[in-house]
């Protein structure tokens, strides 16, 4: 079996982090995990230390992209075969990890835990953004990604080293579209997600609109101009 690292980026998640990690360690001890505390202002780091969780404590707030990249660098430097993102708010359910891992070992570069592969995507305002991004990816790559905004993504060794060392490799749909265009194999896997039970979501209305505009421009326009550099393998550069 491949060695999997579960990266749990956490920003002000004192209400959820213990539940999420306890669930993981109690029911899925076969997987390694690491909590990346993204400069939280609450007791997230203190809870992790007190309970002895494996923790990377960022001294300043880097945002999700930076926190996740930290986790991937940890995975790359410690010889993991694959890594995945699991949100600290408990929306991502670890029972789907096994199926995602099977898909990845079946020969995918990225596996997305998708809410809408076999389930119909609701036609609501909240899902409008997801529709627009799906449509943009389809238009530019010809591939259908049913749930592009899902944060539950798993990466193989090549991908995680590429994500770990490069600029503009945020864990976002525009990176996915860019990688599809550059020949990466992206698969989806039907999962169910829970609702956030406590704490604050970062995505309010203004931020959602900003995110949407940025993703659309990025996918439809900017990704065409990028050049993929896979020249120098990670281990030679930094280990």
């Amino acid at each position, binding site marked *: 079996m491949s060695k999997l690292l579960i990266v749990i980026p956490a920003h002000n998640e004192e209400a959820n982090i213990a539940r999420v990690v306890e669930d993981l360690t109690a029911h899925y001890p076969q997987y390694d995990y690491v909590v990346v505390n993204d400069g939280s202002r609450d007791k997230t780091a203190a809870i992790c230390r007190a309970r002895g969780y494996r923790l990377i404590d960022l001294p300043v707030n880097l945002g999700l992209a930076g926190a996740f990249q930290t986790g991937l660098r940890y995975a790359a430097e410690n010889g993991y075969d694959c890594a995945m993102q699991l949100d600290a708010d408990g929306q991502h359910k670890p029972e789907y990890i096994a199926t995602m891992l099977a898909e990845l070992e079946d020969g995918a570069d990225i596996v997305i835990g998708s809410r809408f592969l076999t389930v119909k995507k609701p036609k609501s305002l909240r899902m409008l953004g997801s529709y627009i991004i799906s449509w943009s990816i389809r238009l530019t790559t010809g591939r259908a990604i049913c749930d592009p905004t899902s944060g539950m993504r798993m990466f193989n060794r090549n991908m995680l080293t590429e994500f770990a060392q490069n*600029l503009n490799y945020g864990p976002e749909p525009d990176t996915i579209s860019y990688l599809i265009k550059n020949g990466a194999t992206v698969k989806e896997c039907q999962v169910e997600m829970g609702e956030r039970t406590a704490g604050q979501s970062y995505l309010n209305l203004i931020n959602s609109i900003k995110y949407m505009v940025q993703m659309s*421009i990025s996918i439809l326009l900017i990704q065409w*101009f990028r050049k993929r550099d896979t020249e120098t393998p990670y281990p030679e550069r930094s280990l």
Partner: protein
Amino acid sequence: MDQPIIRLCLIIGSLITAGFILRRVRLAKVQIEDTIFWLAFSLILLVLAIFPGIAYWASTLLGFISPINFVYILIIFLLLAKQFFMSIRISQMDSKLRILAERIALNEEKVERDKLDL
């Protein structure tokens, strides 16, 4: 704004801006979120140059003598707004840098103290 020279200059300026920023993207020298402003800026210049009617309409509305004044004021406004947000960002980066430097120095001190205790 009837002068074709000014319109041509605006078009060239707009294309150079877009070309330069997209080249930086290609070389992976800039983060994508930082390119959006410049692409929008170059699009606005392009639209103003191609449709001078917009500048005429806006300058009558605001009471400017010449339509080019509207173009100037718009560019000044956009750059000022950008400057403002950049100021805030630099300030935040400054404080992050300070925290990071302090963190490293404190860690270093801890390592050295442990060594001396041995």
